């Protein structure tokens, strides 16, 4: 029995941390491939490169855990970003511009939440609609032209706190916020329940609608922030920025162990997922891999990483199903 328990614990640990194992293996391999890989500058570069999509990925993680999804984040990011840049160019106030970016993100996602909650539109469809609408508004507003000469605004994207680039700093903050929300608040606990079994959550007295809308609002703030950072990092208010970012964000979340069937996922896993993709892109560029080949390798590694993770998990479930149930019942029978 004792032996069984430790074995089970090891299985749990293996399955819970398998994604970090993948990440560590990757760091080791990358380091062998290129001596620059672990240099502080390179690591800081990678962190800055993945910061925007990782912030989006944290939002997606929260949504997917609750059985939801946001396909509009790439577009809403652009809308929030260009409006924020515009406000800065007009007023010169960084704090006002920052607030506008967040508010636009939150408002768009409030609409997402209402569509999903009140009108029962599937999240996939509702946010698909928002994706088109938000992009359209961003293009209408700018007449399809980039906003240049954004001045001090670039500080959000290129400034540093100590040696930490500001986008990385924000990414860490958002990561901590996500971790805290998911693991240490009743909202987070409710979110897992809603995603894991909505009916059971409702029957346990959880206000499912409020949780869903809440998840969208949090996502909205993240998306707005990501928009500000992207525009500032690229030193341009581009209405066509962020196309396809929703899929990069989803990729990071899914690699990080967030389950599309809801109820599973962690902030740490998503961060690991984002770094796996980031490391992969980086090492291929450092070693000069052909750009067509890059796409093939990337897809392959993603399938491999998720495959390993799933295998570790399924393996464990099967084992505990076999192992945990029978002895329990035996004990019961003898009692």
């Amino acid at each position, binding site marked *: 029995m004792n032996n069984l328990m430790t074995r089970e614990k090891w299985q749990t640990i293996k399955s819970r941390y398998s994604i970090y194992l993948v990440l560590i293996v990757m760091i080791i391999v990358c380091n062998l491939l*290129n001596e*620059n890989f672990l*240099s502080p*500058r*390179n690591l800081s*570069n990678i962190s*800055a*490169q993945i910061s*925007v999509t990782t912030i989006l990925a944290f939002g997606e993680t929260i949504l997917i855990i609750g059985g939801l999804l946001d396909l509009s984040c790439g577009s809403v990011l652009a809308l929030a970003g260009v409006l924020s840049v515009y406000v800065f160019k007009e007023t010169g106030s960084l704090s006002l511009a920052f607030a506008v970016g967040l508010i636009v993100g939150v408002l768009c996602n409030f609409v997402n939440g209402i569509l999903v909650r009140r009108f029962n539109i599937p999240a996939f469809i509702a946010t698909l609609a928002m994706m088109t609408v938000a*992009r359209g508004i961003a*293009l209408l507003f700018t*007449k*399809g*032209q*980039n*906003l*240049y*000469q954004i001045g001090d605004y670039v500080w959000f994207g290129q400034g540093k706190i100590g040696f930490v680039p500001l986008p990385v700093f924000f990414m860490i903050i958002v990561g901590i916020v996500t971790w805290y929300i998911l693991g240490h608040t009743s909202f987070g606990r409710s979110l897992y329940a809603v995603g894991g079994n909505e009916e059971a959550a409702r029957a346990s007295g959880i206000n499912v609608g409020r949780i869903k809308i809440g998840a969208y609002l949090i996502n909205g703030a993240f998306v707005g922030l990501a928009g500000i950072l*992207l525009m500032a*990092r*690229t*030193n*341009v208010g*581009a*209405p*066509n*920025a962020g*196309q396809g970012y929703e899929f990069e964000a989803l990729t990071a979340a899914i690699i990080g162990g967030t389950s599309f069937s809801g109820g599973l996922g962690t902030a740490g896993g998503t961060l690991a997922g984002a770094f796996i993709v980031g490391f992969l*892109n*980086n090492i291929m*560029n*450092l*070693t*000069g891999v052909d*750009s*067509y080949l890059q796409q093939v390798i990337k897809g392959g590694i993603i399938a491999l990483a998720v495959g390993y993770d799933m295998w570790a998990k399924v393996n464990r479930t099967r084992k505990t199903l076999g192992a945990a149930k029978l002895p329990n019942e035996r004990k019961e029978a003898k009692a």
Partner: protein
Amino acid sequence: MKFMKSIRTVTAVAALCLAATTVAQAENYKIAFIARAQADSFAAWLANGIMDEVKKYPDMTVDVMDAQADDAKENAFIENAVANKYDLIIVQPNNGEAQRPYVEQAVKDGVKVITTNARIKDIPGSSSVDADPYEQAAVNARLALEQVPQGASVVVLNGPSGNMHADMRRDAWQKEFFDKRSDVKIVGEQIAHWNKEEAMRFMEDWVQANDKIDAVVSMNDNMAAGALEVVKDDPKFDKMLAYGVDGTAEAMLLIQEGRMTSTALQNAYDLAAKNISVAHDLLTGKIEQIDTDIDCPLVTKDNVAEFIEIHKKSGAIK
């Protein structure tokens, strides 16, 4: 039989209505401008230019349609424009070969067609207005031939593969520069999809992997600006050369600051004005067919001031 009859009635009514409108607006030519993608900033700039330019001609109106970078949508717009009896269609192809049969059919159906940015070649009866993509890159490449030091390390940023402009520009760099300068080494070459953010990511990695980069060869200004964004505070790259194409407002400013080396202006206003004037000439019967190019002037620090004026006019910069 009854069905046939009703069809005939409907057709007759429709014909009458059409005749009525034609008579009422005898002097008004309807033009359809089918844009590649309004989300593409050059395409949007061109569409804005066309809308501005057509105001100078009281006998013409333009409707802009957005193909959203999708061949199927673009082709559907061409068919619809023919069906809706536009007098002339300006097609900015998403992919020339995909649009070719539809343009050919439109010409066959008696509609005048101009293909622009980039032209679809060899369609009898259609006209074209373009800037030569080869030449746009070539003017930069010829300048680089003199400027790039012996044994230099350069990085190349490409547009999406399969895109005609991306391929032609890269081809020009190959023939006009790389083939003639075997001493130059390409230390990094990637597709950044015309995109500044993506170009930044590549450049950040290249800066890590290489001690020196002497020049950035970019197929458009956006990507060149991205590369420059990465090294802007790094004195090690003060002397780095950077070439683009398009002549965006951002590139003009970078050239003025001395950070970017050169670009070739593909002036959307010029292109728009030329398109509209050719359209007018075709519709009024002044000419039957024409294939014409606008200039693609090389912009360097010496002449950048005059081009900045163009962008001030558009409001992109102050």
